[in-house]
């Protein structure tokens, strides 16, 4: 007899065993379910990745949402069971409606989808689009009129690009209750990712386009871009200015062709550039009082499958008027210099000829006259050559001064004395005024400052008529004091008109000035006085006076080498004050 306890134990063990078996079974089932679930999830993921990859591969960098939607629609069958998948896209003038049928449905079914999609689009947009023209395309299975299956399962996914609703994607079925939330979610995700990709791409392109547009807008060169049919795509403001196009909007190629007719055949140049794939440069096109260098070049695609293909042409107008003017000034300068050197040289040659004749040789007075003339001619040449060398040094930045402690009053007085005879012969009153506080010694280059004084005083005497007055002065200038007050305090006449600098911000300086009662200089010309080239291109010096005018350019160089400022105040008919300030 089996004891009762043993029976209990067996029963307990049996029960435990059954419980374990049941639990194990349940656990396994759960595990299996999980595994299956995970498998499905993995499959969805795979699909998701695959379709995104496909979208990427098939559409490339396309911004065309319709192309992307076609890819999604075409591959949806692998993942979803549907009767029809369709999309509607909004374009400015119409609605694109595309349906892909997977099984035979009735026209009523399609009509039903259409009206459902239109009303959801209207609802999403907040405006009625029922009246808009619809471009409908149906592909796939044949429509069977007899069938009358209604739309039983249906879901919509809005298409949003860059925060803007562009359309709606719809999946529908004749069978009811088909679409689970998880499926809708995945489709939503795919569409959403595709939209985001397009949005990002659009952003990048917009930013890049914006950068390029801003760059082209701000370019000094006129830029005109055309397509292959010579239709202007873009023209920047500078290009409009070139042809004087004042109306808003993009000018046409004919505006350019007409404007340049007779000067430059824009059309044939553009044709040549585009058809022959050549960059053409046309130098010196004179148009509208300006000189342009015109470059006509083909525009080629530089990315994608069409890389290297000619898309159109670009015309660039580079204004070279300034360069041409500078070139002309340089030429004027050179020919002026040649003239200035030839004249005395020609004279020297003729003096030599004269002196070879026995008559002149025997005549002592004539001989000595000719020798004086030889001396004068060669001196004037030497002066000019020295001036040119100084200018060359200034331009090369190799101009140097040798400063030393010098008695400034003596230096000025010496120059005044030097010109006394000339002034007396010309009937001009020459005076020298020294203000209080002028130091005994100043650190400067005595030779160079004397050169400046020579130039200023001889100019003043040259431009002053008989009976006039030339006043040379030296006085102290304090920072922030008015130079006119300081001048009048020491009794120095000063032409205050058109002053080139007021000296208020200058540190305490020694002022040296030369004031004349000559013909004066116009405001326009005072601005050109100290410039090498403009000296020649204008009639600054007046017809009455010869000389190269290089002296003032050199004077400025000398004063600036002393860290000083040179300037002028002048009024026509009244006279001029040339001054320079040397900081102490």
């Amino acid at each position, binding site marked *: 007899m089996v004891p009762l306890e043993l029976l209990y134990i067996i029963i307990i063990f049996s029960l435990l065993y059954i419980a374990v078996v049941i639990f194990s079974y349940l656990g396994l089932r759960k595990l299996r379910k999980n595994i299956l679930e995970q498998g499905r999830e993995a499959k969805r993921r795979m699909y998701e990745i695959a379709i995104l990859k496909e979208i990427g591969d098939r559409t490339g960098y396309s911004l065309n949402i319709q192309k992307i939607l076609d890819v999604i629609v075409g591959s949806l069958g692998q993942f979803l069971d549907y009767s029809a998948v369709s999309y509607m896209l909004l374009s400015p003038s119409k609605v694109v409606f595309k349906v892909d049928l997977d099984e035979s449905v009735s026209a009523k079914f399609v009509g039903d989808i259409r009206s459902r999609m239109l009303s959801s689009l209207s609802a999403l947009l907040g405006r009625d689009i029922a009246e808009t023209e619809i471009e409908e395309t149906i592909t796939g299975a044949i429509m069977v009129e007899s069938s009358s299956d209604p739309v039983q399962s249906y879901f919509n996914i809005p298409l949003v690009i860059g925060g803007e609703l562009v359309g709606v994607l719809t999946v529908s079925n004749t069978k009811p209750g088909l679409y689970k939330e998880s499926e809708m979610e995945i489709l939503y995700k795919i569409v959403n990712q595709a939209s985001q990709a397009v949005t990002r791409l659009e952003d990048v392109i917009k930013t890049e386009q914006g950068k390029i547009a801003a760059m082209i807008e701000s370019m000094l060169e006129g830029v005109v871009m055309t397509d292959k049919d010579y239709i202007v795509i873009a023209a920047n403001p500078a290009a409009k200015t070139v042809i004087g196009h004042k109306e808003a909007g993009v000018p046409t190629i004919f505006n350019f062709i007409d404007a340049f007719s007779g000067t430059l055949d824009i059309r044939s140049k553009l044709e040549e550039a585009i058809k022959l794939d050549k960059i053409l440069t046309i130098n010196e096109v004179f148009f509208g009082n300006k000189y342009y260098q015109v470059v006509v070049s083909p525009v080629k695609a530089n990315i994608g499958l069409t890389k290297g293909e000619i898309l159109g042409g670009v015309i660039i107008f580079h204004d070279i008027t300034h360069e041409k003017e500078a070139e002309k000034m340089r030429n004027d300068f050179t*020919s002026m210099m*040649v*003239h200035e050197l*030839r*004249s*005395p*040289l*020609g*004279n020297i*040659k*003729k*003096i030599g*000829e*004269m002196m070879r*004749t026995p*008559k*002149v040789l025997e005549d002592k007075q*004539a001989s000595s*006259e000719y020798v004086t*003339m030889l001396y*004068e*001619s060669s001196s004037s040449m030497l002066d000019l050559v020295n001036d040119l060398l100084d200018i060359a040094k200034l331009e090369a930045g190799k101009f140097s001064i040798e400063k030393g402690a010098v008695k400034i009053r003596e230096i000025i007085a010496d120059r005044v004395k030097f010109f006394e005879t000339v002034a007396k012969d010309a009937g001009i009153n020459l005076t020298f005024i020294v203000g209080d506080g002028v130091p005994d010694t100043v650190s400067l280059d005595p030779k160079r400052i004397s050169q400046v004084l020579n130039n200023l005083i001889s100019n003043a005497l040259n431009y002053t008529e008989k009976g006039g007055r030339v006043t040379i002065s030296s006085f102290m200038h304090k920072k922030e004091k008015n130079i006119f007050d300081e001048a009048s305090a020491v009794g120095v006449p000063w032409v205050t008109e058109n002053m080139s600098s007021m000296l208020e911000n200058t540190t305490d300086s020694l002022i040296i000035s030369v004031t004349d009662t000559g013909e004066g200089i116009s405001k326009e010309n005072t601005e050109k006085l100290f410039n090498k080239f403009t000296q020649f291109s204008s009639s600054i010096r*007046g*017809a*009455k*006076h*010869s000389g190269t005018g290089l002296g003032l350019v050199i004077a400025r160089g000398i004063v600036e080498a002393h860290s000083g400022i040179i300037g002028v105040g002048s009024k026509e008919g009244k006279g001029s004050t040339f001054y320079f300030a040397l900081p102490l």
Partner: protein
Amino acid sequence: MAKKILIIDDDKIFVKILRDGLMAGGGGKYEVITAFDGEEGFVTAANERPDLIMLDMMMPKVTGIEFLKKLRSVEWGKDTPVIIETQLSDLGKMSEGVELGVTGYIIKSDYSLDTILKQVEDVLK
């Protein structure tokens, strides 16, 4: 009778050499008078009625061309022979001069006194 030659030029040294050269080279055939600008030159020409004018083109006040225009506009100056003095760099002005009926030209720095003398002789023959 000595032929009267008027030199109008602002280059005083050149005027002196040319004057001396014409006087000496002409051996007393020429009487030479001078003026240093176009304005003075026109007054002198009006008073002296020269047989030949030697005219500088680059002059202060009244330029050579202006002088020529003025000269050709008056009865006494219509047919006066004029030799213009130019620089090589200025030859462009020649055409203007030719239109105003100049008889010849000399290039100041390049021509020797002998050449100038010969040209003057030819004109005054």
